[in-house]
């Protein structure tokens, strides 16, 4: 009986400690951060993504599976700036995992490390679902990615000191390739300067800032509110007086409003990948930016 108890408790203990012995578990809220963690962490990390490219990270439920995943994670890597305000705080509290709580090395929010754009001067919900700290979709400026590579590598070193050299090497390798890619992208981007676009949601602010695109209007009347017919009609009026090259949307935005406007005006409606895995050609951060530029170039050339 005693032997059985010992065996059983040993089995349970090994079951409980098994995940801790394995690779560093990274809980990424969005695919872009999962991809980055995988690039820098390599085979020393195992990444779980809370959302896929087809999901809007604003609106996710604190599902049981996410609580279980966060419970076992060593690093939580998210956008922050209230993008995940509806579900991240509950996950953190319910999962009860000490290492990933705010203030710990295992808690990394991208928005805390880059300059946020569009911090509202007026906070009022009649203006829609505004984010008090600024626009949270920070990953679409490659400069922000560079900043986060360094921050992430530091965190991974803190959490897994034996892997320090590994993370440093990966970060250096990534940054070298990234610098080169950015130079090329910026060369291509010269042709896109001041390209006038209409966007579905203000998800493209950092991209527009980087490429100097001219965001003329949004399909949403207010951030977070679905497009209304009266608002779309006013946009139709607008396109008569202002030339627009493209209507941009993410893979998760419903396409009806964009398609309606495209049909009425002949302006191409373009679904950009938005994040890693946003379409078949966007399997990595490099490919995703590349694909985004290609699609913009196509639209710009057409118009």
């Amino acid at each position, binding site marked *: 009986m005693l032997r059985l108890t010992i065996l059983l408790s040993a089995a349970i203990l090994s079951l409980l400690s098994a995940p801790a012995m394995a690779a560093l578990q990274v809980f990424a809220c969005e695919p872009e951060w999962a991809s980055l963690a995988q690039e820098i962490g390599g085979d020393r990390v195992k990444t779980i993504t809370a959302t896929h490219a087809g999901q*809007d990270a604003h609106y996710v439920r604190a599902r049981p599976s996410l609580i279980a995943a966060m419970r076992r994670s060593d690093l939580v890597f998210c956008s922050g700036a209230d993008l995940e305000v*509806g579900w991240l705080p509950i996950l953190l509290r319910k999962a*009860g*995992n000490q290492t990933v709580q705010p203030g710990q090395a295992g808690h990394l929010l991208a928005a805390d490390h880059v300059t946020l754009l569009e911090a509202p001067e007026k906070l009022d*919900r009649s203006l829609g679902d505004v984010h008090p700290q600024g626009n949270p979709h920070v990953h679409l400026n490659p400069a922000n990615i560079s900043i986060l590579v360094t921050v992430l590598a530091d965190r991974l070193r803190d959490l897994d000191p034996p892997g320090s050299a590994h993370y440093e090497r990966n970060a250096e390798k990534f940054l070298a390739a990234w610098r080169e890619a950015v130079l090329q992208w910026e060369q291509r981007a010269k042709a896109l300067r001041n390209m006038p676009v209409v966007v579905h949601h203000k998800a493209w602010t950092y991209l527009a800032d980087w490429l100097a695109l001219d965001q003329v209007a949004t399909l949403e009347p207010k951030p977070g509110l679905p497009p209304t017919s009266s608002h779309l009609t006013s946009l139709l009026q607008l396109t008569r007086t202002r030339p627009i090259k493209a209507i941009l949307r993410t893979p998760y935005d419903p396409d009806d409003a964009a398609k309606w406007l495209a049909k009425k005006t002949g302006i191409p409606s373009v679904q950009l990948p938005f994040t890693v895995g946003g379409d078949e050609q966007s399997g990595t951060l490099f490919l995703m930016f590349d694909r985004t530029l290609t699609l913009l170039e196509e639209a710009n050339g057409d118009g």
Partner: protein
Amino acid sequence: MFLRALCAAAAAAVSVWLAFAALAAEPDINTIRQEIQNLKNLYESRIQALEEQLKTLQKKETDRSTKAASAAPATSGRVIRDNAFNPAIGVILNGKYTNFSADDSEIAGFAVGEEGERGREGLGIDESELNFSANADDKFYGHVTTAIVREDGEDKVELEEAYLQTLPGAAVIDGLSLKAGRAFWTLGYLNERHSHEDDFTDRPLPNRVFLNNSYNDDGIQASWVLPTDLYTEIGGGIFRGDDYPFGNGGGNGVEAWSAYARFGGDFGADHAWQLGGSFLSGDSDGRESNEGGVEFVGDSNLFITDFRYVWAPTGNPRQQELTVQGEYFWRFEDGTYEDSDAGTGAVDYDEDDSGWYLQAVYKFLPQWRVGTRYSRLSPANTPNGLDGSALDADGQTPQSWSLMADWTNSEFSRLRIQYSHQELSDDKDDQLILQYILSIGAHGAHQF
């Protein structure tokens, strides 16, 4: 000597020549002056341009340094004010128009507490709720929910929740959390939730009769999320035994306890499920119901099993979502019932009764949902002594059908219409309910 004379002569010659030269060049001096002036102007304009350039450069430099400062972690640039640590405040406003076809709302075979009764008819506001919550420090989180309700023609303040919860930083074991105070305790699915989060305007029949809408006694509850792939949470609590289904918590002040377990996971990215079982047991030293007409003294035990399934066809619950949810309640009680309205006296009672509900809600457009719900109760076999009392079901099985549609403008406002057909006793009741729910202040949670 000779040298000196020579020098003097040379000097004199030079000065004479100079004088002549000056005389001869008189008209050119103006030109030279002009030239010099031109040069001066040119240099001045150049200097001005350079100064201008320097200024812009300096401005750029300061711009860059301020940018660099703001690129540091966002926290470093914030202005800290005294109110920076104010708790998150949320206010829920809630109003209804209700129309009933039947005057009577008795539920055959069940004694019903005050909250579990049918609501007021006509125009009126429902619970107005005030929520305050914040982390007290690194170890504790505090939460208060007060509701202002209309009862017996008066506006009363009810303290629905006032609890502390340990934060992960306080736990000795990862995943362990303690909650102490008054809270909507974990029992089945709905009990934990505030009524404004419900998908229907009223709670289903079993929650009304077995929990008086919701169990929020004073007590302590522990919960532990296990580090497993499958979401597994176990927990339990001890309670004062003051709130329905107990009452009059006399004795030593620990009259009830609970235990629960729940599991959950995903099927792919679009399907999620949760399954749970809860048990609540305790002593009632006098549970009053039917407006004081019925009293129960004894042991009351309640077993609840619940499930919830959510399907978001595109992975985006914002766009489309189907939720199916149900709970089954089974209660066995051992004690005495007395219906003073029927003059039964205290009658020995050792019976069980049960109830369940099943509901489906479908969001077909981002702002529109429709739903349906069925609930049903199975009354106990009443002892002879209770014939003709509120506990005597007289062969009835109370049941209720509901249909609802709601429009959610943003995450913070919702309008709803609901039709219910209730057969709770001999009287059939057709109900029409219009409701608004407004949430101002802190952002609510997207619970599963």
